[in-house]
């Protein structure tokens, strides 16, 4: 089957090392994962994220509809504010994680994952029955890229007419980039400050505008980064990857996403009853971060064991070498009694049992040194 291409494919084909990522032809790296990772932690990088899902929801019932389909409370949003959330199946399994932005009282912009694009849009449609809301899938009509790092603001500002410092975290703004009407949100998937940039009116088959903004941002100093660095950066920040760390078999309490679930909001939400039941019953597993103390790199699917090495506690859902930290880290699930910080565990890495311990994982790094909260 031919791979799907994004608006920026022409650039990737010329400069990147392309892989099949969930059916999309995407760059895993251009120059190398480590230098791209470091560019985002120390300076600024740019990622093509046009494979992600983007939809517009419009109509008098939009807010009511969204509040029914997601777990967080969308009614709390002010104009131009966004909120991170999950949506659940009736059995409380996670359909996807997503961000919704309030653009007008009756108009919200929704951004969700690449691998679940079709599934999510169908889910919106299905759950919008009975609500007066019109849903439009913009994924192929609007390019998306992420500019991330401590120098993201000054870099995007170089090609932007409006003052970007006025755009607060998780806010959305209509701006002019490279002379083109665009949107930006002060969000990302790296733990760093930055913007996600949307170029409307740039259909897949006619990507000139998208490429213009991309190339101008690269010229302004943003280093092109591939999916390899995107993964190592989000893992260090402790951010979930849908399909690995969270999925339809995991509920948000297990994934430590309690903070995005508003049980008391009026009208409830899809999956609320099952989730309340799960909460009362007590959780069988909970997400933790693990730092490898011995030698070795944990990977997706490796077993997590107790200190004796005799009892299997769970599995690693994301793992790898953390370039900014210099050791292996993992996100995984264990029974709640093993969740305490400092608890010694072992990870089975091929034939060996390697020492690890439960650590703070949101983020794994010291946030006074790295990430958007860092001391500047």
């Amino acid at each position, binding site marked *: 089957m031919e791979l799907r291409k994004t608006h920026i494919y022409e650039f990737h084909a010329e400069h990147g090392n392309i892989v099949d990522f969930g059916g999309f032809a995407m760059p895993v790296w251009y120059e190398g994962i480590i230098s791209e990772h470091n560019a985002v932690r120390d300076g600024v990088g740019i990622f093509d994220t046009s494979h992600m899902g983007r939809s517009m929801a419009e109509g008098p019932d939009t807010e009511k509809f969204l509040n029914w389909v997601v777990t967080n409370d969308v009614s709390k949003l002010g104009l131009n504010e966004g909120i991170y959330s999950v949506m659940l199946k009736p059995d409380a399994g996670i359909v996807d994680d997503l961000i919704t932005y309030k653009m007008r009282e009756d108009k919200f912009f929704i951004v969700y994952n690449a691998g679940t694009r079709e599934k999510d849009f169908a889910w919106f449609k299905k759950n919008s029955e009975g609500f007066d809301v019109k849903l439009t899938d913009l994924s192929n009509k609007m390019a998306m890229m992420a500019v991330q790092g401590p120098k993201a603001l000054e870099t995007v500002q170089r090609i932007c007419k409006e003052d970007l410092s006025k755009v607060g975290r998780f806010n959305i703004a209509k701006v002019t980039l490279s002379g083109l009407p665009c949107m930006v949100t002060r969000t990302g998937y790296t733990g760093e400050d930055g913007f996600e940039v949307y170029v409307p009116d740039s259909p897949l088959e006619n990507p000139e505008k998208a490429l213009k903004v991309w190339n101008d941002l690269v010229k302004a100093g943003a280093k092109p980064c591939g999916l390899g660095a995107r993964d190592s950066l989000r893992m260090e920040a402790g951010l979930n990857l849908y399909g690995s760390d969270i999925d339809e078999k995991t509920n948000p309490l297990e994934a430590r996403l309690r903070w995005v679930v508003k049980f008391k909001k009026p009208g409830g939400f899809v999956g609320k009853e099952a989730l309340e039941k799960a909460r009362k019953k007590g959780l069988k597993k909970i997400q933790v971060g693990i730092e490898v103390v011995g030698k070795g790199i944990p990977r997706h699917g490796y077993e997590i064991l107790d200190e004796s090495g005799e009892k299997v506690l769970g599995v690693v859902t994301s793992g790898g*070498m953390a370039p900014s930290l210099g050791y292996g880290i993992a996100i995984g699930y264990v029974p709640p009694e093993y969740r305490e910080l400092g608890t010694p565990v072992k990870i089975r890495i091929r034939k060996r049992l390697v020492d690890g311990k439960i650590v703070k994982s949101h983020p794994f790094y010291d946030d006074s040194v790295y990430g958007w909260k860092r001391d500047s």
Partner: protein
Amino acid sequence: MSEEYKTVEGLYYTEEHEWAKRIEDGTVLVGITDYAQKQLHEIVYVELPELESEAVQAEPIGAVESVKAVSDMNAPVGGTVVEVNEGLEDSPELLNEDPYGEGWIARIEPNDLDGDLLRLMDVEAYRKHMAESEH
């Protein structure tokens, strides 16, 4: 395409892109090829074979890891691991810089070298194999 990848005359190669080199004392140095290191790209960790462990031809004796991927290191020949390249523990990047030299992984005392070598490729056959792997 395969011109991009260095090969060395006189070595023996596996389909999985490992190499073996006979040395005068009858032992065999083993490592991964230039093609293998370029596929993995920036190597950040090498799991060395255990000293004195038994190596079985075509079975894993260690692993080579980049940020993104893990690749088993299979033994090109069977025998006993008599030395490992400890320098790789602190400098795994040697595998990227010099896969046929400083980046050697282990030295094996073979137990059926003539038999094992029959199942390996010479440099010509390996170049052909790489060209076929590239598409």
